[in-house]
């Protein structure tokens, strides 16, 4: 039996004004387990707390009920008081007789009656409280960043700067991501490579950073502070440690007709390749689908010309296991496929291109060496039509487009239009828009400059149809402000394709038990207040994997994620919330219902031997909760039919005791 002390607070007149505190403390004196009851003007004051400590000692109290303000206000205070008195802090319950009683009820009689009932419920609960101790787990001081685009790079650099080792896992042969493919960046028009490649070099040279390029995460186990991750390093058939990146093999490789994905297949590369000049790591990779040596054993030129002897045709995929304390997801985005947009003739004409292809066409390192030439006949285009919101804000058909706004298209289209007019003033540029969204520093000024100084024709309306006729593209569009239908003979049509999360995100989310929205963007722990954390402890979000973002936003989020990781990794031990679920293995039947509803993946199963009454041994599958991962929502307790799963601090018996006390 508990020995409970009840402490009724007046809160000046805040409570005592509508609740007869004396009557409350008198009434609760007779409740089962209560051995001491008192009231005082300000329970939270030093004197009030001392009163509690004295009473605990004098009356050998094992539990405390404080009838006072909301637990959201002073629960932590009174828990500390209990600890100071030598009690377990979780032996304290608060009856909220201020916010939910004295402040909302007008007369003394009602207020007092209700306060007594709330007090009784708290006493009933404390009678069933058990001391709870928060578990501690050590933290592995190493971070994993999945994705090596600008988001991953920035996060890794910031974490490494704080002195923690970081690994970057990138599926492509080089880090750099989408930003490496861009030409110039809005709104300042500095060249993407000029600001990105120095950062890539920093990554390569940072002692704290390891890069696993051409690699992917295949398994994640464990929990915050203690993740066990398996990374598959795909065979690149080149020894990374020896390759100097001289490029002799690339030059001599006889197989030169491989579509170059870095230039979005607008030109070709060789079967052994380095994606671009500033690649990090700058090592060659053999494309096994096109290499004659790997396909049929006939060639071997690269091996012969490699002075370093780095070519290894027998290389195998390698699996690396590593422990991490924190994981940052930075898997980025891709433009959506234009295959379903027949109306824009993307698949009918080479001169209908996406904006990312346009970036490559204007990039000095691109297939046309930076000259804006249309892909079909390499002629200079004189009329260019830009179409905005292709697949963005498209609610009608889920397999065609995306319901959300892709956020970056308005600005990059303004940039493309402006740069075109700047370099080729003889070119007419039309931009069809639904809305121009420019909420960002110097963004609207930038867009207005495109219109006012560079003479880009911005037309409020949409393109309905594009069809090739001769060497022209017939564009039929609406001009809503003039209530007209326009027919433009264009040389080039540029589609601002919606962006979507990378395809690797969904399986990764499953591995991480991190949640996603219906669009496959990772969900943040709180949309406003915890935007860089996933709801799964120890998993953080960086960049466009969480939602469409431009570069400045991506970089700020990347640094924010790094700050969160650092604040986790500086801890030696993590203290858990003791109010977690736990399963009674004698009753658990291993049905997996709890595991299915757990948002954190805190529940696993193990086969356990049980001695049966007839002295035989039976093996049963039983649930186990990892207290370091469980956040204590209690969802599992309700799907557990036998009640084997229960929540500490909010146990079935405790809540029912409260119900009974209230309904008595």
């Amino acid at each position, binding site marked *: 039996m508990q020995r409970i002390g009840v402490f009724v607070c007046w809160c000046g007149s805040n409570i005592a004004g509508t609740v007869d505190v004396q009557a409350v403390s008198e009434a609760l004196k007779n409740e089962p387990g209560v051995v001491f009851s008192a009231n005082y003007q300000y329970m939270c004051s030093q004197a009030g707390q001392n009163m509690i400590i004295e009473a605990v000692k004098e009356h050998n109290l094992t539990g405390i009920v404080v009838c006072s303000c909301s637990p959201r206000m002073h629960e932590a205070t009174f828990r500390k008081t209990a600890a100071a008195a030598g009690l377990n802090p979780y032996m304290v319950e608060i009856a909220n007789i201020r916010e939910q009683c004295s402040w909302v009820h007008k007369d003394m009689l009602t207020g007092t009656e209700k306060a007594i009932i709330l007090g009784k419920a708290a006493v009933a609960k404390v009678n069933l409280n058990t001391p709870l101790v928060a578990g501690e787990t050590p933290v592995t001081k190493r971070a994993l960043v999945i994705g090596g685009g600008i988001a991953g790079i920035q996060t890794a650099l910031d974490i490494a700067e704080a002195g923690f080792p970081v690994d970057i896992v990138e599926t492509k042969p080089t880090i750099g991501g989408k930003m490496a493919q861009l030409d110039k960046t809005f709104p300042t028009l500095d060249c993407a490579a000029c600001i990105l490649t120095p950062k890539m070099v920093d990554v390569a040279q940072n002692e704290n950073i390891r890069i696993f390029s051409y690699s992917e995460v295949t398994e994640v186990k464990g929990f915050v502070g203690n993740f066990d991750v398996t990374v598959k390093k795909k065979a690149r058939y080149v020894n990374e440690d020896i390759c100097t990146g001289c490029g002799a093999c690339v030059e001599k490789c006889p197989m030169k007709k491989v579509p170059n994905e870095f230039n979005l297949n607008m030109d070709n590369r060789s079967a052994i390749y380095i994606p671009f000049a500033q690649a990090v790591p700058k090592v060659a990779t053999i494309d096994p689908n096109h290499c004659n040596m790997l396909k049929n054993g006939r060639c071997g030129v690269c091996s012969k010309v490699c002075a370093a002897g780095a070519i290894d045709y027998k290389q195998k995929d390698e699996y690396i296991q590593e422990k991490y304390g924190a994981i940052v997801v930075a898997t980025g985005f891709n433009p959506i496929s234009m295959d379903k947009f027949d109306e824009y003739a993307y698949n009918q004409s080479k001169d209908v291109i996406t904006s990312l292809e346009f970036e490559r066409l204007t990039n000095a390192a691109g297939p046309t060496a930076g000259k804006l030439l249309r892909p079909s006949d390499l002629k200079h285009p004189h009329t260019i039509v830009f179409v905005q919101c292709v697949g963005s804000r498209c609610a009608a058909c889920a397999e065609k487009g995306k319901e959300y706004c892709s956020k970056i298209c308005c600005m990059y289209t303004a940039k493309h239009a402006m740069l075109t007019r700047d370099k080729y003033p003889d070119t007419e540029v039309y931009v069809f828009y639904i809305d121009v969204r420019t909420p960002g520093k110097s963004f609207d000024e930038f867009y207005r400059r495109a219109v006012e100084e560079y003479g880009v024709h911005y037309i409020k309306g949409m393109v309905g149809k594009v069809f090739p006729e001769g060497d022209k593209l017939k564009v039929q569009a609406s001009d809503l402000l003039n209530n007209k239908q326009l027919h433009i003979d264009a040389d080039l049509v540029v589609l601002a394709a919606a962006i979507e999360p990378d395809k690797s995100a969904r399986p990764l989310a499953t591995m991480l038990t991190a949640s996603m929205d219906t669009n496959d963007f990772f969900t943040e722990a709180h949309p406003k207040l915890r935007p860089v954390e996933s709801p799964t402890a120890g998993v953080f979000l960086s960049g466009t994997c969480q939602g469409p973002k431009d570069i400045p936003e991506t970089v700020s989020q990347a640094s924010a994620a790094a700050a969160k990781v650092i604040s986790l990794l500086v801890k030696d031990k993590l203290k858990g919330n003791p109010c977690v679920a736990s399963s009674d293995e004698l009753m658990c039947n291993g049905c997996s219902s709890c595991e299915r509803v757990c948002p954190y993946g805190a529940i696993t199963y193990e086969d356990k031997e049980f001695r049966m009454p007839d002295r035989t041994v039976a093996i*049963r599958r039983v649930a186990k909760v990892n207290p370091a991962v469980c956040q204590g929502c209690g969802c599992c307790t309700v799907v557990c039919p036998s009640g084997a799963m229960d929540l500490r601090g909010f146990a079935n018996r405790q809540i029912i005791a409260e119900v009974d006390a209230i309904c008595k």
Partner: protein
Amino acid sequence: MQKITRDLLVEKAVSLLENGTVDMVLGWKKGEFDYDITPAVFANAESLKDFVFDDFCGANFSKYLIANTKKTASKVLVFLKPCDTYSFNQLLTEHRFDREKVYAVSIPCDGMVDIHKIRAVSGEGIAKIECGEKITVSTIYDETVNIEKADVLAERCVNCKSKKHVAYDELLGEDGEVLESARFDEVEKLESMTADERFEFWQGELSRCIRCNACRDVCPACTCEKCVFDNPASPVENKAAANSFEEKMFHIIRAFHVAGRCTDCGECSRVCPQHIPLHLLNRKFIKDIDNFYGEYQAGEEVGTRAPLVNYTTEDLEPGEAVEGR
């Protein structure tokens, strides 16, 4: 179509025992009367002489696999009717037995009969029943009554939801189809009553409950190691109902615990000694789940996510549930 007979099943069981595929057989044997067939474990070919198969073999064996695969290393032969295969899959989804230890032989079923319906025609004093398309009942008063099998089919067989076998190692005879059944008609009838009428109906039915726990004990979805109503540590433990609410509490909670997992096998109603139409509670949940969250048949496949351990962000609000059906 191959007719499933007792001899055919025994022959199958013997051959599987003899070639070592299985070590024991789950089957039916006669009870005190022709019509109280009970489940039994047959450990060898010899004992199979007591094996019975007729129109009273309604018992669903899926649940028996839990106990019979837990301790021994031996492999069990089980005969499954179409409706039993759903329970079989559902139990596998919940990891309740080791699939490796079971050899499942599925058998087509053209419906089982309800002794109470027979008795209603023949009167008391049944001495002997011969099954077949026509059922011949002899009484102790030397009367013989012929009954059409179709007239005395068990409720769950009248409203059979599926003749399809969704799990087996071996299928005897031919597989059937999922049927369009009228199993929700009764639920709809209740729904269309006023609240007062419904209350009256259920009070009348549930107040007969004697808390014998037969429904729970036979239910292939009720497989807890210890039922929450039996656990002294749970605050709702009670052996027998002491008042008019407790059995309601028991039956609501029981139906809720099996909601989304109940395959509508109908065992609960079959075994209820008080003839409480318990399946109407389960079917209500099944019907609501179908309406609210899309059609879902528990046990149709192994590994599916039951509706109550799943959600969509667009689900209907509880306030709309009553109007939303």
